[in-house]
């Protein structure tokens, strides 16, 4: 079987819904005071509560709840004024209480939406959010890979970390859309400070539900059984897994004709190296989680004032920011998209630069061509980037004044980055001094006298021949402004007759 991208040519519609779990960026766990720092030695961030010791009790971390509220508000969700906690009961060694505190029938929010627009116009999709709820994470199981052993070690540092579950309606229609939507969701959550969304560290996890709607010749539609795909470790894996799964389902449907309802929902795991999904054994205890209201916690009420406070701390989400940047700095939506997608810190850098340079368009060009490119080469964050907006603005200001041209400006930018000196120091050390008009005029007269051929060509109407004079001028004095040289030379030649 070959995996291939869905395209308009394919005789089916892919129907995709996503279930995303994100760890909230809180200092402490959801129901105890333990730290949530990633990567500490195993079982060092634990207490009686997250170890599930006898007699221990949970107490809700209001900061986690407010962060979850922030996410739900940004996803345009309805916020429940009254929400409660439920126990989801199942046995597993990394779940020390034998149940997970989650939310079952009264999630704190529901009925939201998040739109993703392809900046190049390939698609635009408004995806409905079924619900967003809050729960505690489990610990981590580490299985011994050595053959023949059944040894497993448990790290409970993660147990009790706040986890937001975001469930979408099956509104996505292609693997590419799914990936783009996940990118947009991640951007939003990172912007709002809700989560770092680091998939490698497990702070964002995605499961996908997918099936196909296949039109038959008679106008009816065949629907393939829904498959839940797990174990995808990157957004690229999500896209690849969906592409593979759509093709697999189509082949299976062609072979068996199996349709939705003929079999229970199947779970398949994504094998990234092999590039295939594989059926997972149905668990014998299946999915009776015996949910019931968590008696150790009290229901949570949300007041209008609390919502207002959360809204007040929210900041502009990416969609609003894109429009705002385009409006404020008269840059194209595409440029605004590139900047916003780099994160809030880069946008702040850009806005500082644009303000100082008093020119959004030029600032945007420099951000994309110089700052971003260098940043990508060097690595690191924009916050650590050694050339600060004031220095770039200084360079742009000197270019605008005609002290030097853009290419000279780029050399200065590189030198500032390299040396850590100020723009003024670099300009001085490179011997770049503004050439005054008298100096420029005498240089131009000298060149005109030495180049009768060029002068004749210009006089004969070929003004582009003046470029030869500019080249020579730059050789004699690298600090001259080419535009000024050209204008001066043309004026002087005109005066010659």
């Amino acid at each position: 079987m070959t995996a291939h991208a869905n395209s308009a040519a394919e005789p089916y519609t892919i129907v995709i819904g996503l279930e995303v779990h994100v760890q909230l960026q809180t200092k402490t766990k959801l129901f105890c005071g333990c730290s949530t720092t990633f990567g500490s030695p195993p079982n060092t961030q634990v207490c009686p509560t997250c170890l599930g010791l006898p007699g221990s009790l949970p107490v809700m971390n209001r900061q986690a709840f407010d962060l979850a509220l922030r996410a739900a508000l940004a996803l345009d969700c309805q916020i429940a004024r009254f929400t409660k906690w439920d126990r989801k009961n199942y046995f597993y060694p990394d779940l020390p209480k034998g149940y997970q505190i989650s939310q079952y029938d009264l999630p704190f929010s529901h009925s939201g939406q998040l739109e993703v627009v392809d900046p190049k116009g390939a698609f635009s999709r408004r995806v409905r959010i079924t619900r967003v709820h809050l729960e505690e994470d489990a610990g981590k199981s580490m299985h011994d890979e050595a053959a023949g052993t059944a040894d497993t070690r448990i790290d409970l540092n993660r147990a009790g970390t706040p986890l937001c579950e975001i469930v979408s309606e099956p509104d996505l229609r292609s693997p590419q859309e799914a990936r783009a939507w996940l990118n947009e969701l991640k951007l939003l959550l990172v912007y709002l400070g809700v989560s770092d969304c680091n998939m490698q560290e497990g702070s964002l996890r995605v499961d996908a539900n997918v099936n196909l709607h296949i039109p038959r010749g008679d106008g009816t539609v065949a629907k393939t059984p829904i498959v839940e795909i797990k174990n995808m470790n990157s957004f690229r894996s999500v896209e690849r897994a969906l592409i593979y799964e759509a093709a697999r389902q189509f082949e299976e449907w062609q072979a068996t004709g199996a349709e939705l309802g003929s079999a229970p929902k199947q779970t398949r795991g994504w094998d990234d190296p092999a590039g295939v999904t594989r059926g997972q054994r149905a668990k014998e205890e299946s999915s009776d989680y015996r949910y019931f209201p968590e008696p150790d916690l009290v229901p949570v009420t949300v007041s209008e004032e609390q919502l207002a406070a959360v809204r007040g701390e929210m900041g502009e989400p990416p969609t609003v920011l894109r429009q705002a940047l385009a409006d404020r700095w008269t840059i194209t939506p595409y440029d605004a998209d590139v900047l916003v997608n780099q994160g809030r810190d880069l946008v702040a850098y850009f806005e500082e630069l644009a303000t100082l340079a008093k020119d959004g368009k030029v600032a945007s060009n420099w951000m994309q061509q110089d700052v971003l490119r260098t940043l990508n080469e060097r690595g690191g964050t924009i916050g650590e980037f050694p050339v600060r907006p004031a220095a770039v603005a200084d360079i742009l200001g000197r270019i605008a004044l005609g002290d030097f041209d853009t290419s000279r400006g780029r050399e200065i930018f590189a030198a500032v980055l390299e040396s850590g000196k100020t723009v003024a120091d670099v300009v001085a050390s490179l011997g770049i001094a503004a050439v005054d008009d008298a100096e420029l005029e005498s240089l131009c007269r000298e060149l005109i006298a030495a180049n009768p051929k060029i002068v004749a060509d210009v006089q004969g109407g070929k003004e582009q021949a003046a470029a030869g004079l500019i080249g020579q001028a730059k050789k004699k004095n690298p600090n001259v402004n080419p535009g000024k040289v050209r204008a001066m030379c043309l004026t002087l030649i005109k005066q010659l007759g």
Partner: protein
Amino acid sequence: MQPLALSAVDLVAAVQQGELSAVACAEAFFDRIAAVDGRINAFLAVNREAAVAQAAAIDARRKAGKPLGPLAGLPVAVKDALCTADLPTTCASKMLEGFRPPYDADVVARLRRADAVIVGKTNMDEFAMGGSNENSAFGAVHNPWDLTRAPGGSSGGSAACVAADMAPVAIGSDTGGSIRQPAGLCGITGFKPTYGRISRRGLVAFASSLDQIGPMARSAADCALLMETIAGHDPGDATSLAEPVPTYTSLLNEPLQGLRIGRVAEHFGAGLDPEVAAGVEAAFETLKAAGATIHDVELPHAKYGIPTYYLIAPCEASSNLARYDGAHYGHRAEPGKGHRAETGKGYRAETGRGGGGAGEYVGGFDSPLVEMYCRSRAEGFGPEVKRRVMLGTYALSAGYYDAFYAKALRVRRLIQRDYLEAFTKVDLIAGPVSPTPAFKLGEKTGDPLAMYLVDMYTVGTNLAGIGGISFPCGFTAGGLPIGFQLQGPALAESLLLRAAHGYQQLTDWHTRRPALPA
């Protein structure tokens, strides 16, 4: 000075005034434990050395003129369902045999801060499930009034140790009557405060929405003294109440004149032992003579109390006890044939599970992991615990939830409403604690349903989340104590203690002690 004969109030006063050393006090009770507990089996762990050292430190502080806590030198026995960092906490279960928690329960910490001396941990029904203390994995407790009889349960060890003068006061927990019923059967005073009045943090959970810690003592006055220390808000228990704690001891002596006491006709129906009925009726007369008025009230849904309780409590218990799976602490079955424990080199982290559910290595019912779970729980839990875990698991299962658990929650609300309605007409409701006096050990063990009915007068208090107190109101011809119960509205602790104290000022039933020679 004979410490065994003194009330808790007098013991503390004697220690604080230097009339009695805390060490002498502690030694007297430890001597008594050594002399009689072989016959009673009230203690699962005794803390003599540490307790005497603590008492000596209290005496030294007093001699140095430093202030002492409000329970200075008072020996306190603590039910083995409360976590103690210096003593094992087993819940009388093989599952937690030898388990030592890394922390003190909030109540234990409060007692220590008040300079009380923890003498030991008392026997109980396993995980507080039972009404006779016969469900202990470490042997039944014998009623000090008749060693062939049960002390009641689940706080049977706490009740028996106070009745037998092995401790002046004890801490119990009450989920459906587990303080009041054994107090009634052992002739002592047991107080179950309003749900949330005392922090549950560190109380090993049986049924979280019903569990409440409370004092057990010889008198309401001693209960009031303990309440001032153990009650109060705990930010570590989300269900704990933030209301201020009154000085209960200073409010005890207000007269009973004008107190409106409700009498529920159904409490005197079928199943009530005639001697118990007579004792309770006599108590009503005493209260009336003291100026209280008696009014008939109805609790129309009280008859559903037992089935409601025996759904909600096992449902919560089935979840609360899931943590005892052998994986992290407590009893773990020896590995089966299929298991090979080798230490390998490369450990691969399991992908974080999004929506929960078991991870990849659960395997089938025959997998080593599931086998370990099953065998650990089969070996670690006794039959009554298993029965309730199964009841609760069944009742919460898909397809049964609405018929059982959800319906029980609805009935619970009706029972709560009955009490609210009744308390618009009366200040307190009075009646028997349990339908019979102490029954014979082994008498009901073959009939779980008969055993469940011993809770018929007490479960309503827990379902409604209100307070109740029980104390002796007479004795049978055979010399067994008869218990009387008062129930009050939420946060009516002062009123309950005051009414019980008022009654005890007029009677001497609570001062009688079983003949139990050392």
